């Protein structure tokens, strides 16, 4: 059965001429519905009728979709946005908690022998975390500004500064420093001087011990630097003093 819809469109488009137009008109003589419709259409410009019929076709398609498909589309886009958001959040968190491994090389020369020790540690991306650990023994280690070594270091140091400033940095050192057992027993103390670069993430890297006390103290100093606050990125070598002071 040929679609009445397309036949009427053909009828209009052919400007109501031709054998098919005649056939439609003949049919209309026996079909009241068709007859009245053709009467109505005869009263206006065929272009208007064609436009309206095509418009109505689109309109009805949208009309049934509006009900439930549009809801689906909204729900779909909402779901996609939610997924992106969750993924983004996940990535952000992941970056935050991802341990950041780095190696540093400690040159120890206790017996005037250079030994290379690979010391792996984990640093934290979170620049403002300051670890508090149990202090094995009360040690007063904030360097005096009158300290000669300190002054010369400051002059030397063209490089980075820790976030939060030195005061906060040394407060962190005081809270976190775990005086090594052997150095405690041997009553060894002093300043450990570390040289390092700051990488783009603000973490100290390529740490070297420039001035040392004991191997264990060196390790502890490196640990403190790595786990401490971030430094601002320059390109230069930086220096820092980690004081180890026994209580008098």
């Amino acid at each position, binding site marked *: *059965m040929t*679609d*009445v*819809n397309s036949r*009427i*469109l053909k009828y209009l488009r052919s*400007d*109501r*001429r*031709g*054998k098919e*137009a*005649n*056939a439609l*008109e*003949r049919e*209309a*003589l*026996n*079909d*009241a*519905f*068709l*007859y*009245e*419709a*053709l*009467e*109505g*259409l*005869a*009263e*206006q410009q065929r272009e*208007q*009728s064609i436009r*309206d*019929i095509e*418009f*109505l*076709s689109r*309109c*009805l*398609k949208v*009309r*049934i979709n509006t*009900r439930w498909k549009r809801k689906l589309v909204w729900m779909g886009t909402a779901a996609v946005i939610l997924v992106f958001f969750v993924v983004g959040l996940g990535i952000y968190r992941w970056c935050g908690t991802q341990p950041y491994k780095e190696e540093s090389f400690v040159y120890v020369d206790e017996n005037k022998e250079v030994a290379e020790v690979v010391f792996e540690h984990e640093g934290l991306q979170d620049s403002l975390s300051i670890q508090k650990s149990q202090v094995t023994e009360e040690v007063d280690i904030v360097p005096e500004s009158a300290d000669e070594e300190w002054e010369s270091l400051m002059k030397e140091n063209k490089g980075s500064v820790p976030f939060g400033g030195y005061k906060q940095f040394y407060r962190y050192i005081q809270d976190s420093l775990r005086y090594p057992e052997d150095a405690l027993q041997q009553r060894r103390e002093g300043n450990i001087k570390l040289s390092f670069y700051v990488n783009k993430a603000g973490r100290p890297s390529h740490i070297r011990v420039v001035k040392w006390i004991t191997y264990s103290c060196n390790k502890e100093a490196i640990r403190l630097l790595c786990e401490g606050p971030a430094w601002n990125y320059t390109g230069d070598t930086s220096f820092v003093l980690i004081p180890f002071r026994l209580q008098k």
Partner: protein
Amino acid sequence: MHLKRIARTVSDEELLTAYCQKKDKEYWRVLYERYMPLVYGVTLKYLKRPEDARQAVVCIFDDLMTKASVESVPIFKSWLYDYVRDYCWKELRERFADLSVTLDENLAEFCDGFNIDFIRGDAANERVLQKCMESLPEKQRISIRRFFMEDRSYKEIEDSTGFPLKLIKSLVQNGKRNLKLCFEKKEIV
């Protein structure tokens, strides 16, 4: 959508049943779209303005979409046609606040079962028909000949004869009626 491809061969009633069973509005839309230009044409005839006709088409679409799942519909096309006329009547009554509004009622005579093509298929009947043709007034004869035997549309007849469109329509209708009467007389004789 695959529905479009099947739809050509599926009957109106089958499509309607499928809609009622599956509750898929797409079925309804495909069914309605078959006759949508007819709905448009009829509403245009009575409501006159195209914007009113468009709105009516959409309203009727909505109304019947819900009705279809409730009522039992033996013949879709007549059910649709009845509703369209009813709708137009209600609209006109509301608009003109005139309870005497009526729609065209003289359409019954169209379905008179007098099929000229069918008659012409038989040689004997063809001769009777030709005789009857001669008894027609000239304008009617010309119009009938062009319309039924030469397959010309109203517009084409207007082009060739110069008769106005409305006149041609009534000539064809009256001519057909006269032929029917003449034929029936001859048959009896």
